[in-house]
């Protein structure tokens, strides 16, 4: 990824699998697509936004040390989820918005892949008339 260091890209994978459990089952091609979508989205943003995204990943990784004595990626999945929930509801709007941005990136990387649409039953077609009639 051009937008993130190798370490942060790897950490993003850890986070992504908590946010969308199916991401853990992506094959190599799926991961390549995921990273390409996220990378393109970050490249489209300003340097400041890219930098802030990287900093936020660092905060998420290390903040649990103060509370749980362990880095995020060294914690049990249930505890990881508790940390993410805390960030989502955080009284500090900066952290709340950071988590919203992280979620948006992960959802874009996964649900933005047409290859995942079959798994959720989304089958829009250019000509939807037959589908419309089929269930009418």
């Amino acid at each position, binding site marked *: 990824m051009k937008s993130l260091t190798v370490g942060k890209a790897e950490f993003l994978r850890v986070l992504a699998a*908590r*946010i*969308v*459990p*199916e991401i853990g089952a992506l094959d190599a091609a799926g991961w390549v697509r995921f990273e390409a*979508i996220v990378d*393109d*989205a970050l490249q*489209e*943003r300003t340097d400041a*936004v890219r930098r802030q995204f990287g900093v936020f990943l660092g905060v998420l990784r290390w903040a649990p040390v103060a509370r749980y004595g362990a880095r995020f990626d060294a914690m049990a999945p249930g505890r990881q*989820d508790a940390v*993410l929930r805390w960030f*989502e*509801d955080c009284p500090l*709007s900066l952290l*709340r*918005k950071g988590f*919203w*941005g992280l*979620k*948006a990136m992960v*959802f*874009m990387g*996964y*649900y*933005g892949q*047409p290859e*995942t*649409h079959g*798994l*959720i*039953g*989304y*089958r*829009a*077609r*250019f*000509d*939807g*008339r037959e*589908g*419309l009639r089929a*269930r*009418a």
Partner: protein
Amino acid sequence: MREREFDIVIVGSGAGGGTMAKELAPLCAAGRRIAVLEWGAKLREEEYTGREVDMAGKLYFDSGGTFTRDRTMTLAYGRAYGGSTVVYTGTSLTMPEEVVRRWDVPGLAHADLHARSLKYLAENNVHLLPEEEQNDNNRLFLSGCRALGYQVEQFPINVKGCKSSSLCNLGCPNQAKQGTHRVQLPRAEAAGVEVITNCRVTRIGERCCDAVVANPSWGEPSKWEPGEYRVRAKVVVVAAGGAVNSPALLLRSGLGQGLPMLGRSITLHPALILVGEHDRPITNFHGHPKSYYCDQFWKSDGFLLETCMYFPFVTAKNLIGFGAEHSELMRAFPRLQMILVLALDAALPSNRTTVDRDGEPVVDYTLTDHVLDSLHASMKASARVFFAAGAKRVHAPAGTSFFIDAADVARIDEKIPRENVTPGKISITSAHLMGGCGMGRDPSDSVTDGWGRVPGVPWLFVADSSLFPQCSEINPYVTVMALADRVAEGIRANAGELLA
């Protein structure tokens, strides 16, 4: 820097710019030269793929996710030959008389605006979609609203040969939606107007624009070679780049000094997407996404409910939470009913478009308690509509739990508390960007007059949604066209003088 010379230069090709181009095109027969400078590309037909991330990147600024300065909202607005008319759903409403009265723009009468709006309803093939072409997502909204006794209306839409792709917001792949890219711009070009795509106007000067042409990796190449241009406009420049880019362009060009309201009083119709889950598959991603709206709460609570159907990523982004519950709801996609909420926001001078040190637009927008109250009330109303339509459970962004079950319908007030309406956690978006060059009496309260003229700058006009002095309280594109039609008439009426 290369130079080009025209009589009239129009910046932007959306609902405002496209209409201006068509309306002024007859002047070409008299030898006048008119150019439309459009930042975005003209996509080849085969490039309308219907793929969410692909199309968002090609047709929207920032892929449809431009942040406001405090990042509590994202803005979606188009960048293409046809502007945002390429990516709207084509819902075509005319302004209610009482809203025009509230605008209180000297000389702007409802009758005039309405007559012009009707012209564009006809021109754009606006009609009501027959019932057999409506999907379950829309029918369920209708039945839910009716069961509750809510006022509900059908949206007229501007399609021709619609194939029910549901992909309107990604650019119709079937050429059905009658945006300016299909109607006004081709007519203008046939009459001699030159439309230059991939052309970003960086600054407006005395009867000229500085512009940069750069071709992206998609779309038809610009008619001009890549590079920097000075484009002279012997008669007038028309700013029609929309509510973010028109004020930003004028500010960047140093026109803000005599116009204290420039960029101010933007309104956004802050929006939420809500989801209800049925226990059986419904037709939702086949069929036009937007057939009905409910204005039951327009006056009492300041919001509208509309049918909608979004794509996987946008849907996922608009749900609160993550993990197993979130995935479970996404896997229910064929059973999902969706409602879009629009809050009707007041025009506050502190909500404004500015430019940063690099001249890039920055939108300052504060979600007021009044707007958050409206969004809160709208979530509760939407939940009731979903349940009245038979949904087994509902996801509300401010819910105390990820799902609210049908058994809890009587406890909706308790299940969706006001204190959970948390900016920064909830996805709040806008696709109706208005104001910034608002019409009014004089520069103390406005930027333009009722004909889009900028006081003290006789060669400069504005013709887009930035003219709105307050929000439109309806989907705005027809009103943008009607106002542009009026601005064009003003220019034509003075053509002898202006073109002398």
